[in-house]
């Protein structure tokens, strides 16, 4: 049974998929993540807020590109929480 969950932006700002410009993306589509893993950052007010997976699963797709502007509550990624 697959269980699709949307990972939402808690705050408005700029979405980043990597910790810094020189580093690799936190996760790629198809990667397995654990509960609490960081999947991206949102920058607002010179503060970086870590976006975390709320449960374990596979990142099925990102709905927002790196450095795109997001609104609070916007869907960032789809997590397939199927049992491993």
């Amino acid at each position: 049974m697959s269980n699709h969950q949307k990972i939402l932006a808690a705050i408005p700002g700029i979405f980043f998929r990597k910790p810094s410009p020189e580093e690799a993306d936190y996760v790629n589509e198809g990667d397995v993540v654990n509960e609490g893993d960081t999947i991206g950052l949102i920058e607002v007010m010179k503060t970086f807020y870590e976006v975390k997976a709320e449960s374990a699963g596979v990142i099925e797709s990102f709905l927002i590109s790196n450095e795109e502007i997001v609104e609070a509550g916007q869907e960032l990624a789809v997590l397939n929480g199927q049992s491993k």
Partner: protein
Amino acid sequence: MIKVISPGLQTTVQDGGRIGFYEVGMPPSGAMDKYSYTVSNLLVGNNENAATLEITYLGPVLEFQEDALIALTGGEIPPKINGEAVPMWEALSVKAGDRLSFDFVKQGARVYLAVAGGIDVPVIMGSRSTYTLCGIGGLEGRPLQANDQLVIGADRLHSVQAGARVADELIPLFSKKHEIRVVLGLCSYRLTEESKERFFSIDWSVTPEANRVGYRFKGERLNFVEREQPFGAGSNPSNVVDLGYPIGSIQVPDGVEPIALLNDAVTGGGYATIATIISTDLNKMGQIKTNETVKFVSVSIEEALAARKEEKDKLNAIKEQLYLGTGGVINE
């Protein structure tokens, strides 16, 4: 005591502000949306200048370790007690052990949490407000962190019953498009007539660089009148000889991306300030989020003062409504 389980994005202790030190370079700090802040204190019977928590974008999780009367006002970041939705703009009774948490922000940007008695932190230069850039005021001069303990003070003047509520017509509504009223000046003469006209006709969008210090806007380049820069002014056409910056003043460094200076901003410098946000609309500014749009509207000083009086009348109406028959109305 109130225990901080998780702090939110930027939750700080704020009161009416550190007033009277502007000339030595100390900005006032204090609640960004003074109307919502004041109403939160009124709802729990506090001294109007009692310290509250200012919550920005993302709410904290707080655990009350004693019974308390609280009120939440400001933008809509839907609050929950023990997971159950509770209303804003209403005095709420919480019990020891209760947990206050929040849903994602819906409208506005900042919520004020008043606790009957206020948040008790040391008074620095006449205020409990947090000024993070200097690391003073509030709790150790910084935003809240997990495991902080907040002490409830004794800044209470009136006894208000849980369930007391502000009338709907006195609750401000926030949207994603904002009109912000400004008084032209001090250095608007530096802009070309065309740029002055454009400043008031376009929709400015709020960048992610928008916090208690200031809000930066994106729109289009504004041009300054060409001149030979006077002695003492910087070489960029947006520079003037240093002046004190009014709170709420708008400057346009190099003509790109206007910045509105707010509660925690630098108090003076050498950029031309082209307009100043009127005091009542500073409250609205505090409820604007990154990515939203602002249209600036030019008003006269008389209109600004009339708006201020109207807001004061609203606060007096709330006081009458809350305190009539519970020990009298205190109006100065």
